[in-house]
């Protein structure tokens, strides 16, 4: 009788010991501790990381509107530049697309727009910010926020020497990519050995201008309260 009882309790203890939860207790405890630690890290750093992303864009906004030299001079003079973020909604052919943009005003006067745009590059998604004059008639600047193009070839799209070709180009006709020095007024010289990357950037710029041109009005843009 006594022996049978002992046998039964030993069976229960063994089963408990061999159950999945008992086997994995260390993993469960560690997962809990690590989870709390990661939550703490995320809670402390997510604000900084989001601010980094926004800052990178905001830092570039003045030079995309006025050009590098003027923007630097204005910054040294502490000129009052107001940058208001907003979103423009484009409804076209049953398709709705959104563009995040910044309205740039200087001493109460509209100085230009900076529009965020993205598209597929050769390797991965390319993200651009495009500077436009108040009427979106002329491109005033271009900056590459994110790209993973081939180092040494496609990543030359980020070099000022290449990007600056876009400055002062009229938006009335789409830009075309050409190989070698082009005489066309709306031509963009392709990066040598990276025609696809060059075409991607030019394509994104063309599409964005086609979409937003004539739609940069208070009626179509929703501005956010926050002044930056």
């Amino acid at each position, binding site marked *: 009788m006594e022996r049978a009882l002992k046998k039964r309790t030993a069976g229960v203890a063994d089963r408990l010991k061999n159950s999945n939860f008992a086997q994995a207790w260390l993993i469960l405890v*560690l997962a809990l501790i690590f989870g709390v630690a990661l939550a703490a890290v995320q809670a402390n750093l997510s604000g900084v*990381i989001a601010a980094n992303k926004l800052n990178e864009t905001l830092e570039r906004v003045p030079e995309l509107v006025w050009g590098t030299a003027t923007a630097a001079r204005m910054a040294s003079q502490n000129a009052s530049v107001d940058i208001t973020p907003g979103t423009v909604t484009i409804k076209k052919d049953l398709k709705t697309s959104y563009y995040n943009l910044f309205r740039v005003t200087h001493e109460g006067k509209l100085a230009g727009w900076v529009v965020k745009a993205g598209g597929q590059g050769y390797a991965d998604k390319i993200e651009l910010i495009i500077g436009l004059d108040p009427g979106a008639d002329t491109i005033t600047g271009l900056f590459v926020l994110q790209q993973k193009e081939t180092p040494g070839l496609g990543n030359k799209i980020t070099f000022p020497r290449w990007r600056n070709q876009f400055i002062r180009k009229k938006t009335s006709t789409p830009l075309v990519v050409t190989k070698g020095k082009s005489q066309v007024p709306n031509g963009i010289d392709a990066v040598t050995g990276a025609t696809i990357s060059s075409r991607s950037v030019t394509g994104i710029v063309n599409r964005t201008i086609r979409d937003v041109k004539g739609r940069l009005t208070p009626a179509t843009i929703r501005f956010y309260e926050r002044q930056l």
Partner: protein
Amino acid sequence: MTNLPTPFERFIQGILPENPVYRQLLGLCPTLAVTNGLKPALTMAVAVGAVLLSANIIISLIRNLLKPHLRIVVFTLTIATFVTIVDRLLAAYLYQMSKALGPYIPLIIVNCIIICRCEVCASRQNVLAASADAVGQAIGFGLALTGIAAIREILGTGMIAGVQLLPTAWPSWVIMVLPPGAFLTFGLLLALVNWIDSVRSNNEGRKG
């Protein structure tokens, strides 16, 4: 348990005799992928070193609680946690570098060097030996990465860490900063290390 190397031996072994890259041929993904410049290579080496040290210490502390059939899960869980922390820290305080390294920081989770050190050393020895091991292996990994990166950056762009080194007339060998350059440089350095090793053991053989 009796013949395990001492902390000092562990430290020295990681740097050259058991260099993770040249001797064990581990961690080759970052070795080939982020060595097109000295700065990203150095950042990657520090990141791997930090994760390796943290993981080795934790695993060594809990080594007596490990169950043989669940140990790899514990290793991976620990490593993944520290990699995520490093990834977030980089994004917060070295934003441009974090963007340049892209997916290679999260990929440290599957870096075999770390899991190998947890298995070979940290799960068997005390915290001191595990820490010395981690530091030694991290230095060995760092030396391998920065060596390849320096050669590739100088020949590929004429610059080192973004500073012009060779005269601007240098026709930058673009191939060196492209993927083939990684394989070429790594292959030649691996051959060099093996050659030095064979010469040395030959000399020792003659003396003996």
